[in-house]
C-alpha cells in the first residue's frame, strides 16, 4: 500500500528464514507469517514446490529421461505442455484430515479448488474391487462373505459408538493395552477382513501395526470413516491443477501476511554464530539474517540421516481409463503386501484431465512403494499389469531422510522427506512438530479475521 517504499532496499533482518518451498515449508511459512513473524522464504529452484512440486511434461522428460523426445513429437502425442501438471510425490488429502483443517482455518481454500477422488480400490486375488464407501456398497460388495459382513458391521459399530470416557462402549477393550490383532480377534474377523481394515481403511503400508496398541489404528479407521462420510464417494480429495497448488497457496498466504519470497536463489553459504548457532545465509541477492531457519533436508544434507527406507515411484501416462474402474476419472488402488508376497503395500494414484493435470483423454497413474529388493522396477510389475497399455513411463527412486537433531542446539529445524503414505497425515504431523519446536507452543488452528484489509 505504501507508495513511498524504496523499491531497491531489501530488509536483511528477519525472524525466520525458510529454505525450500515444499508443502511442509510453505505451511510453516504461512502459519508463522500469520502469527506476525517476519519471514524470508527462499528456494534454490526457480519454481514452487521443491520435492512436492507438480511439473509440466517437458520438465518431467528433462528430469527423468536422458534423451527427451522432440517438442513436436511430444506435442503430437500428449498435447500442450501447459495442460500437464504432474505430481512428483503422489498423495491425496483425507477429506477430514489435518491438511483439510489447516486449509480451512487459513482460508487457503480461497486459492485452491478441490474435487473428490472418485473411488478407492483394493487388489484381491488378481482383481480389483471398490472399497465400499457406504453401507449399501458394503452389503453388495463381493469383498466379504455374508457372515464376515456381519462381524465387520459389529466391528464398525464398536468404532462409531466408542466413547473415551464411557467404558461401557469399550466392550472390554483397552486401546492402549490391547493390540490391534487382539481387537480383530475379539470381533472374530478373518485374515482377509483384517487385511481390508488394516490396509484399505487404516491405510497401514505393512503389518507391523497388528502387534502394536490399537489406538493409532483406531484413530486411522475413524479418520477414514469420517472422511468418507464427508463427501461420499471416497475419503480423498484432490486439488485441481495438481498438488503443486498447495505449496503455492500457502506461500501466497505467507506473502499476504508480509512474507518475502525469493525463488531461484541458491544458498551460497550458511552463516553461524561463534556458538555454532544459525545466523544467516549468503545468496546472490544479499546476506540475510535470522535467529532460526526452517529447511527441507536438501539444504542441510549433512544434518540429515537416511531413514533406511527408499521409495520407488513410477509415473505412467495412459490414454485410457484404468480397466475395471467404471471409467473413474480419479482413484486409488491399494495392492496389499500379502496379496503379492511383499512386506509393503503398493499404491497407485490415478488422476485425469477432470483434475486439470493432463491433456484431454489422458490419465496419469503414479505407482509407489517402499523398495524391498535390488530390482525395484520389477517390484512394481503387479501394478503395471493393472493399468493396461502404458504410453510413457517415468521412474525414480528416492531415499527418505530425516533430521539427526531436533534443532534446539543450532536453531536449524529440518523437515522430513515425503514418505510413501497415500495421504498427507504424516506431513501435517511433521508441520505440527516443527511448529511446536520453533514457537514453543502447540499449533492451535483459529479462523483468520475477516477484516484485515491492510
Amino acid at each position, binding site marked *: 500500500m505504501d507508495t513511498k517504499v524504496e523499491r531497491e532496499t531489501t530488509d536483511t533482518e528477519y525472524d525466520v528464514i525458510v529454505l525450500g518451498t515444499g508443502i511442509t515449508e510453505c505451511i510453516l511459512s504461512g502459519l508463522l507469517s500469520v502469527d506476525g513473524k517476519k519471514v524470508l522464504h527462499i528456494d534454490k529452484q526457480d519454481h514452487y514446490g521443491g520435492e512436492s512440486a507438480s511439473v509440466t511434461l517437458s520438465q518431467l522428460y528433462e528430469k527423468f529421461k536422458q534423451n527427451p523426445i522432440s517438442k513436436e513429437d511430444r506435442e503430437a502425442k500428449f498435447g500442450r505442455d501447459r495442460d500437464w501438471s504432474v505430481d512428483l510425490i503422489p498423495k491425496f488429502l483425507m477429506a477430514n484430515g489435518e491438511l483439510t483443517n489447516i486449509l480451512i482455518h487459513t482460508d487457503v*481454500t*480461497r*486459492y485452491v479448488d478441490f*474435487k473428490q477422488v472418485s473411488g478407492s480400490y483394493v487388489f484381491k486375488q488378481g482383481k480389483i474391487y471398490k472399497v465400499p464407501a457406504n453401507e449399501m456398497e458394503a452389503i453388495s460388495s463381493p469383498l466379504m462373505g455374508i457372515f464376515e459382513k456381519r462381524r465387520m458391521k459389529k466391528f464398525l459399530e464398536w468404532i462409531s459408538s466408542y466413547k473415551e470416557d464411557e467404558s461401557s462402549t469399550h466392550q472390554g477393550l483397552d486401546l492402549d493395552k490391547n493390540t490391534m490383532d487382539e481387537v480383530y480377534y475379539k470381533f472374530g474377523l478373518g485374515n482377509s477382513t483384517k487385511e481390508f481394515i488394516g490396509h484399505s481403511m487404516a491405510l497401514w503400508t505393512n503389518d507391523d501395526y497388528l502387534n502394536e496398541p490399537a489406538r493409532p489404528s483406531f484413530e486411522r479407521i475413524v479418520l477414514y470413516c469420517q472422511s468418507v462420510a464427508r463427501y461420499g464417494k471416497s475419503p480423498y480429495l484432490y486439488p485441481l491443477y495438481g498438488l503443486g497448488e498447495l505449496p503455492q497457496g500457502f*506461500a501466497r498466504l505467507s506473502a499476504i*501476511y508480509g512474507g518475502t519470497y525469493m525463488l531461484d536463489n541458491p544458498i551460497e553459504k550458511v552463516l553461524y554464530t561463534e556458538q555454532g548457532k544459525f545466523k544467516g545465509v549468503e545468496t546472490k541477492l544479499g546476506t540475510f539474517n535470522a535467529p532460526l531457519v526452517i529447511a527441507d533436508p536438501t539444504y542441510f544434507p549433512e544434518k540429515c540421516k537416511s531413514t533406511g527406507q527408499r521409495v520407488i515411484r513410477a509415473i505412467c501416462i495412459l490414454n485410457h481409463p484404468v480397466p475395471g474402474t467404471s471409467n473413474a476419472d480419479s482413484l486409488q488402488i491399494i495392492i496389499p503386501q500379502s496379496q503379492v508376497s511383499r512386506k509393503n503395500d503398493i499404491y497407485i494414484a490415478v488422476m485425469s484431465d477432470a483434475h486439470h493435470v493432463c491433456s484431454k483423454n489422458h490419465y496419469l497413474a503414479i505407482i509407489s512403494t517402499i523398495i524391498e529388493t535390488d530390482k525395484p522396477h520389477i517390484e512394481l510389475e503387479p501394478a503395471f499389469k493393472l493399468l493396461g497399455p502404458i504410453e510413457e513411463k517415468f521412474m525414480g527412486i528416492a531415499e527418505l531422510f530425516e533430521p539427526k537433531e531436533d534443532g534446539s542446539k543450532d536453531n536449524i529445524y529440518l523437515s522430513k522427506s515425503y514418505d510413501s503414505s497415500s495421504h498427507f497425515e504424516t506431513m501435517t504431523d511433521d508441520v505440527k512438530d516443527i511448529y511446536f519446536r520453533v514457537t514453543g507452543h502447540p499449533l492451535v488452528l483459529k479462523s483468520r479475521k*475477516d477484516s484485515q484489509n491492510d
Partner: protein
Amino acid sequence: MNSSITSVKLVLLGEAAVGKSSIVLRFVSNDFTENKEPTIGAAFLTQRVNIGDETVKFEIWDTAGQERFASLAPMYYRNAQAALVVYDVTKPQSFIKARHWVKELHEQASKGIIIALVGNKIDVLESGEERKVAREEAEKLAEEENLLYFETSAKTGENVNEVFLAIGEKIPLKKAEDQANQQHGLRITDDQRIDLASSTNGPVKASGCNC
C-alpha cells in the same frame, strides 16, 4: 428480475510502488456501488460493478509482493480473466517492466484474458513533475498488444472506475458461458467442485468451472 452475476478474477501486475494497490483501494472503497463486500486477507478484494442489468463481480488478486524477486506463482495467473498492468507515468523503468508483464501474461495466462495498461500517478504532473512516459508510446503498445489503455490517478480517483468499467464491458460473453457451465455442473453433479469450508453452509462455488 433477471440480472446475473459474473465473477471475474482480475490480477494486478506492475513494478513495485507504481500504485497497484492504491488503484484497487480507490476502486473498492469508493461508493461505486452499494454492494461493497468485505473480504478476507489483505490481498483478495472484491468489488461489484453494474453494467446495464448485469453485475460483474471482480475478485482482485494483489501480488502480495511476490513479484518483487520474480517469485509469482503460476497459481496467480491461473484462470485470470482480466489483468491490470500498471506503470508510473514519471518512471520509464516501470514502463519497461509493464512491457515485460504484458509478455508474461500472453505466455502464462488464459488466451482470452483482457488486459488493461494503466499509466498511474497523473496527478503529480499537475504539481510540476515531469512526464517520462509519453502517451503515444503507451498507446502504441496498447494497440500492438490489443490492450485497453488508461491514464489514472489513484490519488484523485481520476479514471480509476473507468478502467474497471471498460474491462467489465468486455466481459459479457462470459455470462452465457457460465450459465452453460452451471447447467453442466448440475447435470453431472459428481463433477462439481467441493467447497471445503461448506460445513458452515457457504455457497457452492459454481463459477469458473471450465470443464
